[in-house]
């Protein structure tokens, strides 16, 4: 049995957003990701599952070059967004991150007002022509973040004053406001209670109409609920990638089956 499957065989070529080939990631001397090949589809929710330390977050952070902010981290291989190499020297990571938004594990609203939190991205990228334009973007983003009705009367209040679930939805709305093409989510519900988790999951389901969503999760139920494609990582290898239904009901690799049934993890 090979450690890595050939992702391209399992995925048809329609609407591929990210194409990763032979990706290796090193932290100093130790290798965190080995030969990962994967195609991530547009307007689809892709879930990365696997035990802790298997490299799923590391791989996620390769997709918008957030690993650049870690000095000892080195990425090799080929990652293409719409067939453009995102690690090519002429690519500016700042522009890339405007196209590939990210939501983090812990809600991290800026210590600013709710309005300024959402308007942050549009302002630095000059997306709004005037104040009313910006107001529209803020309202639209908050609606898409399923937060508008709760905060529309207090947009001037600090974002840090919201509850945990509201803060995470604020962060999602903030990422949506810059109009990205792909949304990366790193365990977005791990700090949330079940009700807030349900709200965020519902939101992810709506977001897939406009974006490609990649979500890292520890909860297999969550992966099964929200995603159409699932990738199982183990010890830095992409073990299995395919339709979520298929992976959960009929895994090919014995390691996937062991993880899903709770024997490794």
């Amino acid at each position, binding site marked *: 049995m090979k450690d890595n499957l050939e992702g391209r065989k399992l995925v048809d070529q329609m609407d591929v957003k990210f194409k990763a080939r032979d990706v290796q990631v090193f932290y100093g001397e130790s290798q965190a990701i080995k030969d990962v090949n994967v195609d991530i589809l547009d307007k689809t929710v892709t879930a990365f599952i696997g035990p802790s330390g298997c490299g799923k977050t590391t791989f996620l952070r390769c997709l*918008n070059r*957030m690993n650049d*902010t870690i*000095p000892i981290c080195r990425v090799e291989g080929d990652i293409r967004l719409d067939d453009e190499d995102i690690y090519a020297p002429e690519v500016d990571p*700042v*522009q*890339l*991150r*405007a*196209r590939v*938004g*990210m*939501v*983090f594990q*812990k809600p*991290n*609203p*800026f*210590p*600013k007002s709710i309005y300024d939190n959402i308007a*942050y*991205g549009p302002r*630095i*990228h000059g997306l709004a022509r005037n104040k009313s334009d910006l107001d529209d973007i803020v309202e639209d983003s908050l609606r898409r973040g399923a937060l508008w009705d709760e905060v529309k009367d207090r947009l001037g209040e600090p974002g*840090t004053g919201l509850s945990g679930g509201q803060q995470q939805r604020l*962060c999602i709305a*903030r*990422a949506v406001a*810059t109009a990205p093409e792909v949304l990366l989510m790193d365990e977005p519900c791990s700090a949330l209670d079940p009700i807030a988790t349900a709200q965020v999951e519902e939101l992810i389901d709506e977001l897939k109409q406009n974006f490609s969503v990649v979500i890292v999760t520890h909860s297999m139920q969550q992966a099964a609920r929200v995603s159409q494609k699932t990738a199982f990582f183990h010890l830095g290898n992409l073990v299995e990638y395919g339709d979520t239904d298929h992976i959960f009901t009929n895994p090919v690799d014995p390691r996937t089956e062991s993880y899903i049934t709770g024997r490794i993890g």
Partner: protein
Amino acid sequence: MSPLWLLIIILVLAIAGFVLGRARALASVDDHRELHSRPTYYGINVAMLAFVPAALVLGAWMLVQPLVINVMVSGMIPEDSYADAGALSLIMSDVRRVADGLDLAVSAGAMTEAEAGSISTEETDIRARLGEVGVALGSNVEPAVLAAAQRYRHLAKTGRAIMSGVVVLIAGAGFFIAYRQTNGQFRARNRVEAGILWLLIAAATVAVLTTLGIFLSLLFNTIEFFRLYPALDFFTRLEWAPSFSGRGGASALGILPLLWGTFYISLIALLVAVPIGLFSAVYLSEYASATVRAVAKPLLEVLAGIPTIVYGLFALLTVGPLLVSVFGEGGLLGVGWMQGGTAVMTAGLVMGIMLIPFVSSLSDDIINAVPQAMRDGSYGLGATQSETVRKVILPAALPGIVGAILLAASRAIGETMIVVLGAGAAARMSLNPFEAMTTVTAKIVSQLTGDADFASPEALVAFALGMTLFVITLGLNILALYIVRKYREQYE
């Protein structure tokens, strides 16, 4: 017995108590797991009870004994030989010096103990005899002073003997009581913990009481000054012209020109220190690689270790002449704004350099305290590094940075040596930063180091100046602490 020997004795007793107490606790049970506390606690408990009360009594006795003896002996000085309390205290210090001289003579073997007790002014030239052993006296010894000195020696000796007895007794009693208590059920750990608590409380109290003491020592002299000089004049007069006693004439002691100089110099210092310090903090915490940071940060902090008098020399010898060569008469710019090397600008620039590590080090800590999640959030939205710094990190860190700046400001206001050497001595209210001015601190130095009578308003004004500065910097510090504390609440 000398206090040092006493201390050694109770220390030895304490060490013995530690060993014996520990052994007794261990012997009282079959298995040392049955002990209520770890064996060491039993040892510490005995040592503590042997040492602490005895040491406290020793310290208190040594403080009180001279005062008591002073009162007892001063009654022997005839009342017609001194005019007021000040003169009496001068005579009493003579008494102590003669007594010390006699002690020294006895210990050097130049006099027997009996001789020292019975010697009298009629038969011997005390001054010459004491001169032989190296004790210089200002004048011939009066009979009353000699008698007082002999009585002083006698009382001191008796007092010390009683003290030795009492201290050793207390140490022994403490040792004995704690030793008797020691057995497997005794809660030694709780008592030792309580002892540690009191030790910590005592340390904190010393710090607080010292602040209070400094405040009070300023307060009484300040009140004395305002009795001699109207407070309204002091706070509102625009003129500083002390006249020293002897030359006659009333002094003009208005604080405003000095405060103006203080604030002007501090302002220039902050204008230098805040941008440079803040930018270097941003560079060090956000941009610099770990290697650069490891080298640059300690180097920057070396600036904080330079004594301020060295900065003063730098101002006087380098910065002042340099500024004159640019802004002075016939200088590079030919403007002739600057008459001499000492000026507000000279002191302000150098003080600014001194404050850079203050601002940068504090700001660096505060910027580092901004959670990494904030940076990730901003980068994740496609912000550049400088956008992240300007729009997320600095606003998040702002209250803390303001606190750091206020702390630097109170340092600047209290700074003395740089202004003494760099700013000049003329009290003046002018807007020209190239003119010499002076500050509150520099004037405190000059008022107290002159030869003015200590009871005159010209000398006492130093305390009023010090008090004013104390209140201003205290206010600034409280404001800074308030802001910093508010900042902390933001991340809860």
